[in-house]
């Protein structure tokens, strides 16, 4: 896999006094100032509705700011759909809680969707993919450990395998940034750990800036480097995973930590 960070800035994200207010009045993001350096592995936590998804989706333009700035690699994220936004999104891979694969297509086709931004439209419309891009797709599948499933229909896979395909799709983009929106929320505990390990490994080996939304606090502590806590759209915590305490989590959530906030139930005390 070719190195993606030739440019020192590749994968840098910055929010400046960013605000998002939804049409129905709900505040999704409030005066966010945040800087993320290339290659960082950031876990974002907060209770439901705290603005975790809003933050992620602001990075690739799926949510637009009401005011303020959000920049990727020093350039403003375009507010309107169009070529510029598509160019930006090519560099940003997204992983979803519900996997979002095209069920009827094969794993290979699903991963190739990650290359859509890089191949001329006329070729992709006719399903004529260049060998080079097929190679990239295969390498992505190898990196998540399921190259043998390449020609299987996506709907025939287990949840964990489908999420791996989702990760492979993002990897196929050869992105500078990966956004993972609650990637393990639909998975069983064993698979959850496997996927989190995959994400950490990819971040270390390829240097891709990774932002992960999690609602399980023990996972955040175990796998995160830097932890960001959101509450009602505001940044209330920004620190290292090594030093975060249960009290910090309580502040972020605004309440006591309960069993539902942890994956392994034995880990909760009192």
């Amino acid at each position: 896999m070719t190195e993606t960070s030739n440019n020192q800035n590749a994968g840098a994200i910055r929010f400046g006094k960013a605000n998002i207010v939804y049409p129905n009045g709900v505040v999704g993001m409030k005066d966010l100032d945040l800087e993320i350096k290339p290659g960082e592995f950031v876990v974002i936590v907060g209770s439901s509705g705290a603005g975790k998804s809003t933050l992620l989706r602001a990075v690739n333009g799926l949510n637009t700011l009401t005011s303020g700035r959000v920049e990727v690699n020093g350039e403003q994220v375009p507010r309107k759909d169009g070529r510029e936004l598509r160019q930006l999104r090519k560099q940003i891979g997204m992983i979803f809680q519900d996997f979002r694969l095209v069920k009827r297509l094969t794993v290979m086709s699903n991963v190739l969707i990650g290359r859509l931004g890089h191949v001329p439209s006329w070729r992709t419309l006719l399903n004529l993919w260049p060998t080079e891009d097929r190679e990239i797709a295969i390498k992505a599948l190898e990196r998540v450990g399921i190259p043998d499933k390449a020609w299987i229909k996506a709907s025939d896979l287990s949840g964990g395998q489908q999420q791996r395909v989702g990760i492979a799709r993002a990897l196929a983009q050869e992105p500078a940034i990966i956004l993972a929106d609650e990637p393990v929320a639909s998975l069983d505990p064993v698979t959850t750990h496997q996927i989190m390990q995959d994400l950490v490994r990819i971040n270390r080996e390829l240097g891709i800036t990774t932002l992960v939304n999690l609602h399980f606090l023990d996972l955040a502590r175990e796998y995160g480097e830097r932890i960001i806590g959101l509450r009602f759209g505001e940044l209330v915590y920004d620190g290292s995973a090594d030093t975060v305490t249960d009290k910090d989590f309580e502040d972020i959530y605004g309440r006591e930590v309960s069993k539902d906030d942890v994956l392994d139930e034995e880990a909760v005390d009192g």
Partner: protein
Amino acid sequence: MTERVLTAPGGRVGWATWTTFIIAALFLISLWAIEFSPQIMLQVPAKVAEDLKAYYPPDMAYGWEAVLPAIVESIQIAWVGTIIAAILSLPLALFGARTLFPRVARIVKFISATARAFPEILLAIYFVPIVGLGPFAGALAIGISSVGMLTKLGAEVVESIDFGPVEAVEASGGSRILALRYAVLPQVLPEIVAHWLFRFELNIRASAVLGVVGAGGVGGVLLNTLSYRHLEKAAAVLILTIIVVLAIDMISGAIRRRIINS
């Protein structure tokens, strides 16, 4: 005390009774309006029975000679009409989906509602003076009329899909067109093709009828034989039509089931 419990609460006359009463009234009014009399009611079965005798035995020689070509023509008309409608309705169905193209969809839905409003035979009345008598006019009429229905059904299928993969494609830098090709089409194609096949089954019946206004097919032959009261020939027309339509229904139905289950 017990008697109270056994009587239904409220009035004895519910809305169901009222509705039946109204419908019966409408029915009787209609009968009177078209000058239906008990006499006619007695004569109808007698006349029908009389006619039935004249239909037997069916003139199958005429059947092979004159009817089969006409049935073939009806099939061809239905086929071309359905193909035209299928090709035109696919992009229209995509653009007519509120979930994908909220602004354009309203216009598309309006156009399809207009096209749907016309029975094929009325469209044929307009097409015949334009391209002349014959099956070509029939195929065009069926094509336009079917586009309306197929667009509406197709748009409904598109609106019912999982939108997640579409967003995933766009989040990775794909354009909307590519999202249509890779996230929408794979989800909707089997169901839409099934709709095309069912439309073909219906169009066979429609094309059979168009012959009555000179737009080709079996209808004209039937009309002829009936006008001249060559009822044994008409019988041949009916028998062959029934057999062919049944056969096509069965084959098309089987294919449809296989596609939906793929």
